[in-house]
Every structure is written in structure tokens, then in C-alpha cells.
């Protein structure tokens, strides 16, 4: 199961949990599963976050694969200059 970590700013949506385990093969599947666990979190994660999978940061990560031992972090959006 993938280890999903939330920044402190996102924990208001996860009943204060900093980390959960989710069984999913893509980021989309992972968000769907998280939304079932914490209703409403899916929209926030889809709209306002970039995703780090095993240390690599992705934007538009919906179809990125997630492996059984992946470490996934949802991050605040940031802009480069």
C-alpha cells in the first residue's frame, strides 16, 4: 500500500491524520480512495496540489503510476519565475 503524507495545512481535511496507507495504482485512484475516506478531500487535492511521488514532484499527476511501496506527498502549488 502507498504511504500518503499530508502537510499540516491539509490535515484539516484528513481528521488531523498526517499519514495514511492507500491501495491504488495511480494518483487518480489514490485521490478517489482518499475522497472516500475523507469526503471532500478529493476536490482540494485535485485542484490545489502538486504531488511528489518517491521524491519526484509532478504537476498534472492524475495518471502517474503509484507503486505498492510509493511515498506520496501532496504539496502546495507553487509558481516559478
Amino acid at each position: 500500500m502507498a504511504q500518503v503524507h499530508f502537510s499540516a495545512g491539509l490535515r484539516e481535511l484528513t481528521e488531523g491524520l498526517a499519514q495514511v496507507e492507500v491501495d491504488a495504482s495511480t494518483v487518480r485512484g489514490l485521490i478517489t480512495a482518499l475522497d472516500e475516506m475523507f469526503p471532500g478531500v478529493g476536490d482540494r487535492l485535485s485542484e490545489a496540489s502538486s504531488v511528489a511521488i518517491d521524491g519526484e514532484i509532478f504537476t498534472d499527476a492524475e495518471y502517474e503510476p503509484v507503486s505498492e511501496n510509493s511515498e506520496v506527498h501532496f504539496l502546495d502549488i507553487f509558481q516559478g519565475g
Partner: protein
Amino acid sequence: MAVTEENPGYKWVGTRPIRPDGLEKVTGKARFGADLVLPGMLYGKVVRSPHAHARILSIDTSAAESMEGVKAVITGDDFPDLAANGAHPSDVDVANNTIARDKVLYEGHVVAAVAAITREQAEAAAKAVEVTYEVLPHVLTVDEAMADDAPLLHEGMITKGVDPAPEEPSNIASKILHERGDLEQGFGEADAVVEREFTTKPVHQGYIEPHAAVADSNSDGRANIWCSSQGHFQMRAYTATVLGVSPGTLKVTAAEIGGGFGGKTVIYLEPLAVRPSQRAGRPVKLVMDRDEVFRATGPTSGTRIKVKMGVSKDGKITAAEVWMAYEAGAFAGSPVGAAGMTAIACYDIPNFVVEGYDVVCNKPRVAAYRAPGAPMAAFAVESVLDELARNIEMYAIDIRLANAAVEGTQAAYGPKFPRIGFVETLEAIKDHPNYTTELGPNQGRGVAAGFWFNAGMMSSATVHVNENGTATVVTGSPDIGGSRQSMALMAAEELGIPYESIKPVVADTETVGFNDVTGGSRVTLATGAAVVDACRLIVEDLRARAAKTWDVELDQVEWVDGQAQHVEGAQPPLSLNDLAAKSGRTGGPISANASLNSRGVGAGFSTQLCDVEVDPETGVTRIVRYLTAQDAGRAISPDYVEGQMQGGVVQGIGWALNEEYIHDTEGVMENPSFLDYRMPVASDLPMIDCSIVEVPNPAHPYGVRGVGEVGIVPPMAAVGNAIHDAVNVRMTELPMSPVKVLEALNAHDE
């Protein structure tokens, strides 16, 4: 150059050839945004608010419309009401920043635009537009905006990121929070604790070329736009949104760009040129003057930042607490999110809380500026770290080495770092002669470090082989930092032909596939990867054509030094020139496209060493010598990498010592010119020494990390730490101008 891994035998990558755009620029032939002139073209002029905050009661355009030569006058009512149409809030903000509808939110906010036959007629007509305002109270700083009784810019703004959500609106758009470990325990383990509060002022990106746009609309609803920007695909998307049209109806051509630094990733003029052009049926040109650039574009945030950090006697940081408030200007979207993620990212800290607020105020909407958000946070954190090092009598470099993030360190913002080169930048500084050069009277030395993520995002490239064996490399990434040379060098390396045989071109939105903006230090990485992919497709095609020519299997052909060779030497080699000249016989023109959403972004780190001399009589700080060490991954074009490193440092020195927006009590900017907004010039500065560190990014075909931004993160703290070393005063306000340094010296003496 500090090379940590040997160059694997590249012929072109890492060399310093003549830049491909050099001749046109030094002979004045390069066409920038304001240079275009079309037959029948009208000149536009924008009408701007004189008030920092006011309700628009009425706009009377009748007098302006009746003036000689005037062909069109537009106001906010000439654009779709995106809020009423249920558009995404960020799109509504883009539209309302382009032209105000009901309220003006900063001095310089657009309220109308005119187009006339001559520039003089347009200027006269703009003055004849009569706007009636109800002036409202304004807020200019985070302190004013966050006060309990502050006047609101947006009556419906409820702070995001707070649980439970506030019931009352405020000027705080959002809150961010990062935390790990036990703060109380961390400070309990510390042998030294320092707590300081810092303020920084808004500063402008300071690009030399003002914004400019020309629009030419057709009767079928389509329009051509020429503009100076960091991303013409992005300009197309934003402009289409504001106009309420399909992006496909707009063709945008990127002009040469005279600097952007993040400030040209957003639109200002393009819709204001298209709409009058549609009305008049003629092309319309809009060019800002410097005053408008200052009043209505950029800048980056002013901030207030509080930092408390603790260290043990052996230099280990035991805890860090950071509170930060960033001005967003008139609309939500300051870079406080990135500031929160970067503030302590250089270090492995077990216990921390980083809290940040995005705060709107009555100033221009902030725009990205090189590593947006990170420099202000680094000024605060790196200053406190310097003080902690002094308290425990440890060298500034050594305390950073003791805590440096390395491969596997869990970054403060979440994920574990892959291979990074922070330690190597620290060691490069320590190994440089500047580190041990003797200092003179009133001179001091400061060290600071910085982190930036870098970015990937989407890019496309097309490579054509011409009939004489040369190649054209087409991308859609405006070249603001030398990307054409980098593209050409990588293409030359892949194809095995001379750099001079490659022509790199930046094409319009209808000629090449989509490219995200030139920003985030991403182009050499991402667009470069697309170019490499396209070249490799070309090479596969060339091998197949050689196999066909020789009537052998594909695996009997390899591509070496720009020619097809039979693996057993059974055939005379076929050069790219040979194959190109006969391409019609082997399948037709030789061309390939590649598009990607980039993977494998490599983070960037910079460590800098600054020597200053402070005049105790005047408070003037002179930069004596300056060294910057930065991990480039691989320097495709060392000249341009050094240029980026030096440019970031110079902008940071200006931010540190002189630059600031100054407003009067009515919220009107008092210094909107380069005479009064003091940026450093060449005579203010020594040579900026560069040490390029190369810790290749394993996820990029050439190891690229991106170099455009991180260089601006450390300078303010490096300068401040050097001032402290020179005269023993800790500067906590930017800019560290002569007046402030003198005040600090006088206070210190009392």
C-alpha cells in the same frame, strides 16, 4: 568550474560558442515587443486609477470618443463579466486585474483604454476619459491589511486553510502550515536560541524592456498578437479567457524579450489591444512607459517574517519556528506557499513549524520574481543561522555543512531529496581563494545559502534536417536566458554535427506544439528534453535510411559523429549531408516532433560568499568581492549558466541594498522611475565570481537541473551577514540602505 563528475566526452555540451542571437541584438536588428509597426496601425493608451482603493461610480467616454483620430474607447464593460459567468476565481482575478469593473484596487489599476491614429491623439483622449470615483480607505502593508478593523479589498474573502473556516471575511486569502516533530522539545535541547523579526519591501523585477503588445484582429473573429512575454501560449490562454473566446482564435508570436525574471508570465496589455483592434478593424499597439511598469506590473511581495531557531553546541539545528506574512497585492496569490516550502529546505531539522499568510493589500498584484517567495524567507532564516553560528563560535560554512540536506533527507516540505548538490556548493565556497582572502578595515564577510525546486512542465520541439545537412530546431519557449544556445548545443551533440549547423528558432503558437512558460528554471531541462527526444527520432530515421541505402538490417547501422556507419565497416559512411541531399529517395523530408510533460526535475542549491566594506560615516555599503557557487547539474552552456548566476546575485544585491517601492500616505507610488528606484549598475559592482558545481541530475539525458532562479535566494542574507561581520550590527529590514545602516550604527553606539 568545480566538476564533481567527469564530462563523459561531450563535443558540444559544456562549450562556450558564440550565442545564436548575438549578432541581431548587437546590430539592433532583433525585434522586441515595441518594434513592430503594421500598416494602418493605431496607437493605444491606457487610463489608470489615481487612487489606491476606490469604487468606480461612472466612466464617461463620450468626450474621448469624439476627439480627432480616436477610433475606439473601451472599459471593463466591453469584456465578459467572468464572475457573473461562474468562471474560476483565478480567471476572474486575471480579468479584473487586466481592467477594473466595479472597484480599483491599486494606484495604476486599468479602468479604460483608447486607440487613435497617432500616439499624441491617444494620450489626449486618455486624459479626456472622465471617471468618477468614491475613494475608499486603503491598506498598503501586511500589518495594515491584517489589522482587525482593516478595510476589505474583497468583501467575500474567507481565509482558506483555516479549520474551522472563519465566518467573517478578511484580507487574509489563505494560511499555509508545515510542521514536524516537537517544537518545545527541540528548543529545550538547544544550547543557543536566536529570535528575530524581519521586514522586506516590494521590489520590481526590473526588466529593461517595458511591456508591449500589438494586436491585429480580422473580421472573422481571429486575431494575431505580437507581444513580449515569457510564454506566448500562456498569453494566448489568458487573453482568450479575458476576451471570452476560444484560444484557437488567437495566434500569438513571441517578440524578442528584454528581460522578464517572472514578471512576464502574466498578461497586462494583450486583451486591451485586441478589443480596440476588433472595434476599429485596424491593428493596435500598446506600449507601457517605465512609470506604468512600476505602478501596474510585478512586483514581488513585501513581507514580515519572524524566525526563532535553536542549535546545540555541536552546531545541530534542534528546532525552527517561522511565521511569515506576504503581500499579494490586489488579488490573492502571493508566493507564501513556496516561501513556506523553501524557508528551511536547505537543512535537516527534526522539529519545526512554518506558518504563512497570503495577504491582499492595495498595491499592484504581485507577479513571479525569480524563485518566487524564497529570497525573503532565506534573508530571515540565513541571518538567524549566521547569528547562531557566532553564538556557538562556529564558522558560517561549517554550521551549514553540519545541517545540510543530502540525498535521502526528508525535505521540510515533505518528500525525500533525490541526489542533490548542496554540500558540494558549500565545499566549493570553502575551497575558493575568496574564502581566505584577508579583509581590510570596515570590511566583513558573509555566507548564505538557498534552495529552489526548479520545474518541469510541458514542452514541444520539432527538428527539421535541411537539404544541406544543417538542422532547424523549433521550440515554443521564449529565450530569456540563453535557451536557444542550449537547445542548439544539445541538438549538435545528439546529431553529431557542428553547433554552427543548428538554427534554433522560437515559433508562434500555430507553428509548434504547446510549451508552458519560460519560467521555473525549466526550459533547458524540459524543452531541452523534448529537443533531445526529437533528435533521437531523427537519428533513428537516419539509421533506417542508411540501412535502406545499403540494403542491410537496421542493427547493422550505427550513428557516430554525425554519420551513419556500418558496424563492420562494410560500407563507406554516409554523412548527414549525404542522407539529407537524397532524402527524397529514402522516404522524403527528415523531420521529427517530440512533446512531453517533463519528468525528473532536479532541485537547485546555491551558496554565496560576500565581502563588503561599510563606511561608518555614511552607512554606504560597497560590495568588495562576491562569489557564488551553484549546482547546475550539467552546464550545457557555461557562459549562460554563469550569466544566470551573476544576474541572480546582482538582482539580489539591489534588493539587499537599495530597491524598494515607496508610497505616500494616499497609496501613490513615489519612485516609479529608474532614477528614484535604485537598481545596481555595473559601476556599483565587482566582478561576480562563479563556481559552477556539477552534480548531474540522473533523470535528465544531460544531467540538467535548471539554473535561472536559485541564485537570487541567498544574496540579501549574504550581504546582511557581511555587514554584521564588518560593523557588528544585525540588519533586519530591507533594503539595507545607507540611512538604515547609519541608524543601526548610531543605535549600536548608544
